[in-house]
């Protein structure tokens, strides 16, 4: 996804048969510029996903401590993660 890429109008079958319309979602985020925020957000979200679902079970960053696991215990089961 190079910077500022847009969908070429001519490549779409619909646009060749109908009158020109405003683009559906005109904003195409320039990947390079937005990358920092998007990647950072995704990483933080995955860290949260890990602590809710996995930590202090199969692998643990706090060793044998079980406080997070026990606290979110019911949510972990209910959200579909393997537990115990």
């Amino acid at each position: 996804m190079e910077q500022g890429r847009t969908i070429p109008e001519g490549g779409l079958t619909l646009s060749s048969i109908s009158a020109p319309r405003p683009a559906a979602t005109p904003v195409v985020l320039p990947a390079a510029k937005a990358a920092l925020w998007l990647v950072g957000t995704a990483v933080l979200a995955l860290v949260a996903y890990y602590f809710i679902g996995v930590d202090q079970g199969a692998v643990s960053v706090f060793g044998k401590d079980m406080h997070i696991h026990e606290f979110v215990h019911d949510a972990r089961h209910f959200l579909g993660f393997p537990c115990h």
Partner: protein
Amino acid sequence: MEKKLILRGLLAGAAAGLLAFLFARVFAEPQIGKAIDYESGRDAAQAALDKAAGLPAAGADPDLFSRTVQADVGIGAGMIVFGMAMGALFAVAYAVCLGRVGRLRARTLALLVAGGGFLGMYLVPFLKYPANPPAIGHEDTIRARSGLYLIMVLLSVAFLVAAAWLGRRLQPRFGNWNATLLAAGAFVVAIGAVMAILPPLGHLAYNKEHFGNHATETPLPLTDADGRIVYPGFPADVLFSFRCYSVAAQLLLWTAIGLVFAPLAERLLHPRTQAAAPGAAPLPV
């Protein structure tokens, strides 16, 4: 723009997580309570059998949090943080999809991305490794079970992304309808092959060795030395209700993310529609 989208994704996720928590508190907690009662009863029956056989008693795990805290606060914190994490991932996926997946209106795209999140992050992995209440799942297989579950999540999401890409590639040649069907078919075949290859949890080496050849880890009736049943297997109705509510809660969570985010994105991306002149070309679907 990306910062605005992420903020709205977090908001939608927090609202969705709160809704899912209320649902869980009302519907799931009674089932979790029943499962824990079953587990305690079974442990007691097992302890009695062990005592009769002259085996040493197994030590109980200390309770770090009371059941009240787990059932009222812990599950709430878990659901809301999970909702916000999913809202953030949703916003990232939405930002990447903007303008790259065809002529879709902002709010339609929001629902489609939310649907993808529900399928990839939860429902497809659930079909292979469904959610289990407490009392189901052997402690010694947690490593393998977590690994297998996360492989399912990763491949479901990866194949969904690949299917969306494939659909875009096929669209000029086959048209929207057929390209969508072909991409969906390819997804089903690919993820189906993965499901066929990955082992059922009951077939893990540890389980086969200690519990025999069963498909799942769901506890069977407990028998004494003579083969008499001294404690029943896990109640089927509790298991069904728990799983049904688990699917419902995730459906609720992702629907809420999509429906809360959709109007916010619409206002952000189509600010002119409110003042559109009569006779102007209508927006795409």
